[in-house]
């Protein structure tokens, strides 16, 4: 792969070079190969019910990972999403239990996410505190608050109308549809809305963005508020899928979401990554999770195998980038 030098280095690349493989393509290939291998060993892996089950398991994570993508692309990070998920679900549950009309309770789930996102954003943007620290603090604050408020009791016996997460539309579970809409909308928005492009600008080079006249602080703020709202939507799916709301739910959720995002190629440095990639990250994790059960990998070795596969996917991409001279 000798790079042809011109008088003035053209900085161009042919159609068949590695460059044309984006991180998303690489990940998609990895995922397809994995699925192919799995379904070769266990043909029933690809049965429609399992596909549906993987998608259903992915749905609330996918919505959350969209939010995380927004935050990370804009240069921040949010590790409070697990506790946030619990708070949102509990708020909705408590309201529904208190007899508030169901649509209001459901809206409250999403809105409480918006509010917490706003608090996170305010502390980062106006307080000038690094997001990882703000959200590390919020992780414990919110978790503690849930236990303080509920005493840990699960929230049960909600009116039947509450459980919209169990409904189906045209045979497809509603959570999958919601996730699909969110992912599609976010992907298009990030790619085609000028405002969406500002997220990348702010994450890639804040000072340059400022000099371009982009309202950096407002964008950062927006990333946290949108993330909070999307965690609210994830909580909406999550809380209405099961007959009870577990008040200590979402423990470790942040790790899952961040892992999915970075496996999906969202750069932790900010400024790069796509919703599609992040979605592939989620699917990859869930395919591995379900696949290892089909392969009857002992639960004791599960984490080691899963971690190794994640590492492989990541290293593969890094080697690709290095060959391109990007690193």
């Amino acid at each position, binding site marked *: 792969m000798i790079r042809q030098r011109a008088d003035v280095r053209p900085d161009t690349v042919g159609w068949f070079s590695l460059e044309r493989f984006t991180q998303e393509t690489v990940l998609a290939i990895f995922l397809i190969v994995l699925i192919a291998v799995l379904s070769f060993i*266990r043909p*029933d892996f690809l*049965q429609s*019910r*399992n596909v549906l*089950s993987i998608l259903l*398991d992915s749905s609330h994570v996918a919505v959350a990972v969209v939010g995380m993508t927004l935050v990370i692309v804009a240069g921040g990070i949010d590790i409070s999403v697990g506790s946030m998920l619990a708070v949102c679900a509990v708020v909705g549950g408590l309201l529904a239990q208190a007899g508030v009309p169901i649509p209001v309770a459901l809206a409250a789930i999403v809105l409480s996410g918006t509010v917490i996102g706003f608090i996170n954003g305010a502390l980062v943007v106006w307080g000038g505190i690094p997001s990882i620290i703000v959200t590390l603090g919020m992780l414990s604050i919110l*978790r*503690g608050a*849930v*236990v303080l408020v*509920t*005493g*840990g*009791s*699960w929230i*049960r*016996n909600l009116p039947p109308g509450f459980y919209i997460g*169990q409904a189906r539309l045209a045979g497809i579970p509603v959570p999958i549809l919601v996730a699909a809409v969110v992912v599609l909308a976010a992907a298009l928005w990030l790619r085609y809305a000028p405002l969406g492009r500002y997220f990348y600008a702010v994450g890639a080079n804040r000072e340059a963005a400022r000099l371009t006249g982009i309202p950096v602080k407002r964008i950062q703020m927006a990333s946290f508020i949108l993330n909070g709202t999307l965690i609210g939507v994830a909580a909406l799916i*999550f809380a209405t*899928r*099961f*007959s*009870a709301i*577990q*008040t*200590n*739910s979402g*423990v*470790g959720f942040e790790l899952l979401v961040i892992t999915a995002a970075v496996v999906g190629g969202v750069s932790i440095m900010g400024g790069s990554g796509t919703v599609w990639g992040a979605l592939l990250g989620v699917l990859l994790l869930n395919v591995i*999770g*379900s696949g290892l*059960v*089909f392969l*009857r990998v002992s*639960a*004791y070795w599960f984490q080691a195998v899963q971690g190794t596969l994640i590492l492989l996917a990541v290293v593969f991409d890094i080697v690709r980038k290095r060959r391109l001279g990007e690193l």
Partner: protein
Amino acid sequence: QPGAAPSQPEPAATEEAHEEATAEPTAEEHAEEATVVTDVELPEGWDGGWTVNAPDLAGQPIQVYDIPKLIGIDYFNATYKGMQEAAEELGNVTVTQDGPTEGRVDRQIEFIENFITQGADAIVFASNDPVAIAPVLEKALSQGIRVIGYDADAEPQARQFFVNQATFEAIGKALVESMVAQVGEDAQVAIVTSSLTAPNQNAWIEEMTKYRDANYPNLEFVDIRPSEEDQNLAFSVTNDLLLAYPDLAGVFGLSSVAFPGAAEAVKQAGKCGQVAVVGLSTPNVMRSYVKEGCVKDVVLWNPVDLGYATIYAVRAVIDGTLKPGDTEFEAGRLGTLQVQGSQILLGDPFIYTAENIDDFNF
């Protein structure tokens, strides 16, 4: 007279420890204090520990600290409720619950140290690890603090009595019997446990396996998967199991989170009645599944009674009415409970069914 003998600081679980049965001073006290005398004569064969130089608080008001595996979950709220009930009945007992927000033994140890510093009269605990928690409990004993376990035991010599809600054997048997009753002897079943390292769950799995081997060798345990106290994970793991093992006839859900998660998965897969779900959990969490017929019965003791009995045991030990060697004791509304060695037995595990589940609220 073995009780009067000076004791060496014993590592956990050595044989002499069981026989000599004295309070175990921790290393630093041992340096100062060569001779340790327990408060009572310990009978031959007594495997528990005992306090040293405990103040005589018979009939006096006492402060009891409760350290569950973790705070903020229904189950330990229920045991605490029972403790409060007992304290109210007795009138001269105050119970305070505190503990970690996640089931980590290292945090539990920290809390117990704090209780000792605070000057507790008695500590009741449910341990996250029987061995790890032992040294700090032994330290409490050596400072005259009464220590009684419930729900999940420590090394015997690290506490005075343990209120045993149901033996592992009895639970293992009840679970397997309930499963066999629903799926027959010839079937594939899977286990959804809490975490792979949870001592109680592991002990139940061991007993289930033993009982199965002895009685129903054709009942196959195809897989064990953890659910980490997360109903979402329990749900999706059960789902995976249902799909990966098309012939699966039943699922054990071995915790108050795993059981409803598994039941939910079976229900949403539309397999109620085809796939049996058997396990341990609290009635409130399981009520809807039992009523819908997705779950036939729920195996559990009554955690409120468990907490209740524990506080009665504390009072009795302090008042001197429950001593090593006793074979029964009076536990308020529960009547007379059996005592075997250093274990107080709550009775057989309770089976909740559609008929009686509405009588319980915890």
